[in-house]
């Protein structure tokens, strides 16, 4: 498995639904796949004491994030018999209602794809050096906190 190279996971701005469709479509040649599990993170218009979130501006320590994602990828491939996995995360401004995270895993049987997808999402939220700057309706900002 060591021939896999670190992939860039970052995507400038929101991830369009058409990009997701193209990614799904590409898997139609892989006829050993029986199930795809997809998680999409969408920017939520959270209302806090400082006001309502209208967008999140994402920054990342890209080099470290790509290295870290590569090691998560190796772990996931060695733990689950999946055929492939893809991760895309937005950088820059993403408006409420737009997609900022796209995680996609595929396998012969559904359980492995689902479990791998869930674990990828949990790990990337905890381990990737990415920060969300929440822009509020009055154009002030606050830093997103992951629970």
């Amino acid at each position, binding site marked *: 498995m060591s021939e896999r190279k670190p992939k860039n996971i970052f995507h400038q701005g929101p991830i369009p639904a058409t990009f997701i469709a193209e990614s799904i479509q590409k898997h139609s040649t892989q006829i050993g796949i029986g199930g795809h599990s997809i998680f999409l993170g969408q920017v939520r218009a959270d209302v806090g004491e400082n006001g309502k979130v209208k967008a999140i501006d*994402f920054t990342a*320590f890209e*080099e470290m994030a790509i290295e870290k994602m590569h090691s998560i990828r190796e772990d996931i491939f060695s733990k689950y018999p999946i055929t492939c996995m893809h991760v895309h*995360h937005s950088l820059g401004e993403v408006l409420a209602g737009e997609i900022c995270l796209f995680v996609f895993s595929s396998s012969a049987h559904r359980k492995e794809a689902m479990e791998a997808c869930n674990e990828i999402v949990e790990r990337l*939220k905890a381990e*990737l050096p990415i*920060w969300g*700057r929440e822009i509020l309706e009055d154009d002030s900002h606050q830093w997103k906190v992951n629970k």
Partner: protein
Amino acid sequence: MRVHLTLFGQLSDITGKREMILDDIPDTATLLETLNTMYPQMANTKFAMALNTKVIKENTILHGDNNIALLPPFSGG
């Protein structure tokens, strides 16, 4: 030693900077002391430190050029 420092998240708000260069820093403990003197508010902020993309937890002696990043709690996804 020279340190190329990159500040992420709320640390760039506190310092008003995304990047800084600091000279004559022998180890990471000295770096933290220097920063706390320059920006007392940093003492109230939780963050990790990465030397060339590897997180370091203990005081580390610096050699040559050093890329150090200060990482507040992550909030991607």
